[in-house]
């Protein structure tokens, strides 16, 4: 979907998203001649704008792209809004996309890693609903509090991650997570995706496709949901009052799961 721009290489320009985003994030590769490079990028970026995906613009905010050398900052807080009314029981495009993007096992067993899952809800006296469930990226994550080595941490822009270099595999965060978001890798892993290192003995969970976000792309589940025609998942910067997601959250009624725990999750659900 985001292949409209030049294909992603190790040192290549980012693809997808808005023109302004691509323009700003490429500039930082060389210290000299920045302006020259920027002008060039702006030129073909504008041309690419016409090919930019319409869902990409409605789903993803026109944010100032972050250059690779700049650290993530607290000015942003990434979040998602899931509209359950648009989610269908028959569709699991988000799960398939997540598996493909992150190199997760396709077979779903009690020990396989599942970063996102479709949950079917049957109201005791009512209808059946379906929704995708993933790490809620809480502002007060219990998993971060309990990790003995600090491997489970919250990045400055709100994404909760596991630093697998420091994880000792004690699984305390899995006990602590109120959403059962975390998985333990029970078997040796091979053929990992280069952007998503993962291995036996560590705990992992949805990374909000941090490797894609840092390149101004959308998380894989968001893109897949849009491609499938449902457009149930909206992603964006919760701190930006002008962003699409902030406006929608202000407009429609939505809530956080297990809101009584006051974890201030980054993922909200509308229609439940």
């Amino acid at each position, binding site marked *: 979907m985001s292949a409209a721009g030049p294909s992603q290489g190790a040192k290549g320009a980012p693809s997808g998203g808005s023109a302004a985003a691509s323009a700003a994030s490429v500039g930082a590769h060389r210290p000299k001649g920045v302006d020259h490079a920027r002008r060039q990028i702006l030129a073909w970026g504008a041309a690419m704008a016409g090919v930019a995906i319409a869902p990409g613009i409605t789903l993803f905010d026109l944010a100032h792209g972050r250059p690779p050398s700049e650290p993530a900052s607290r000015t942003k807080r990434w979040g998602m809004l899931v509209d359950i009314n648009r989610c269908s029981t028959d569709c699991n495009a988000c799960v398939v996309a997540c598996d493909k993007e992150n190199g997760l096992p396709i077979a779903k067993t009690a020990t396989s890693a599942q970063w996102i899952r479709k949950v079917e809800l049957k109201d*005791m006296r009512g209808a059946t609903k379906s929704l995708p469930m993933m790490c809620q990226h809480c502002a007060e994550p219990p998993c971060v509090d309990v990790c003995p080595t600090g491997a489970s941490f919250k990045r400055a822009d709100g994404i909760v991650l596991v630093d697998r270099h420091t994880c000792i595999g004690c699984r305390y965060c899995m006990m602590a997570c109120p959403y059962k978001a975390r998985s333990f890798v029970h078997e040796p892993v091979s053929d990992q995706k280069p952007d998503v290192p993962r291995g036996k003995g*560590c705990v992992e969970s949805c990374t909000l496709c941090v490797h894609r976000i840092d390149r101004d792309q959308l998380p894989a589940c968001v893109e897949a949901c849009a491609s499938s025609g449902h457009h149930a998942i909206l992603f964006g910067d919760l701190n930006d009052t002008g962003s699409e997601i902030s406006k929608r959250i202000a407009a429609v009624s939505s809530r956080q799961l297990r809101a009584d725990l006051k974890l201030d999750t980054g993922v909200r659900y509308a229609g439940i």
Partner: protein
Amino acid sequence: MNRTTFARSESRWFWALTFLGGAVVLTGLLAAHTMEVHGHVVTGMDNQVVWGMPHVFAIFMIVAASGVLNVASIGSVFGQAAYKARAPLSGLLCLALLVGGLFVLMLDLGRPERMVVAATHYNFKSVFAWNVFLYSGMFAIVGVYLWTLMEPRLGVWSKPAGLAAFAWRIVLTTGTGSIFAFLVARQAYGSALLAPLFIVMSFAWGLAVFLVVQSAMYVWNDRVVPPPLARRMRNLLGLFIVSVLYLTAVYHLTNLYFAKQVAFVRFILVDGGVYPLLFWGGYVLVGSLLPLVLIYHPRFGSARSMLAASLLVVAGAFALLYVFIIGGQAWPLEIFPGYRVESTFGDGHVAAYAPSVPELLLGIGGLGVAFLVTVVGVRVLRFLPQDDLQQPAGADAR
């Protein structure tokens, strides 16, 4: 210098026991190696029940380790002379059980080779990180305490050392209970009651383990524990058993009061299959009521019934921990109250768990480590309570 000489047969027994203990430890190491090479898929643990049999063994040993030091504390801190003679054995058992428990815990990690990372990176909001200090500090403090007890010139320091050890172990056991108390995610945990519950559990289980080891050592040496002391220790065990029963009852009754907890309580106590069976049959009947009968009924009062009662308490401890740790995880998380939930990740369903061979062998390996440390320690240093060795063999036998 007082030299103790051992009879030849005793030496042979010592080596036999050492090899036995070593074999059990080796089996445990082999099991851990299998888990490391193949991953935890060879165990019964999965993404819902993340802590299994190894944790049942490890937590028993760590809780009993802190509790077994009680005997020494009653001597040094509360000044009861008869207990003071037992203090060195109690200290040794504390160290042995702690080593055994940590052996199991560390080898069950997903990445046990990252011990150095665990020792150098700390998140002080985590009670696990505090436990690293509490456990290693326990080794140091009990080591110093043992030294004050066994070195005649330092005898005057044994009271402050004993007090320090007592205070430290209360904090340590509170830390162990807090591992679960601080979890808000699951119905079974997140209760402030768990820390005091673990403290009284440590009293009961520690004393039970001490009585088992003491009985074994006395039988080995053809001695008998003086009946008045034996009666007092028996009564103390009875008191501790009742305390654990009390706090467990309070825990479940309080949960019953909350509508949102009723389904979970029913699962644990009534229709959860193996969990109610282990709770009522294993913990309440075999692990609490039967020992109480053996302790208080006038018909029973011999050393043998004390040993039996202690063993039953230990068995009941394992049953209770199984229900608490594994049953608590098997019950699904309540993310969507009021809805029936289905997913590919086991949401809404009770998780199935069956202990696997590697887990059991690892847990037993930990017991083997504790056993080995005790056997070697008792052989090398004078841990048997010395006061009773002045009596001729067979005297005061009941």
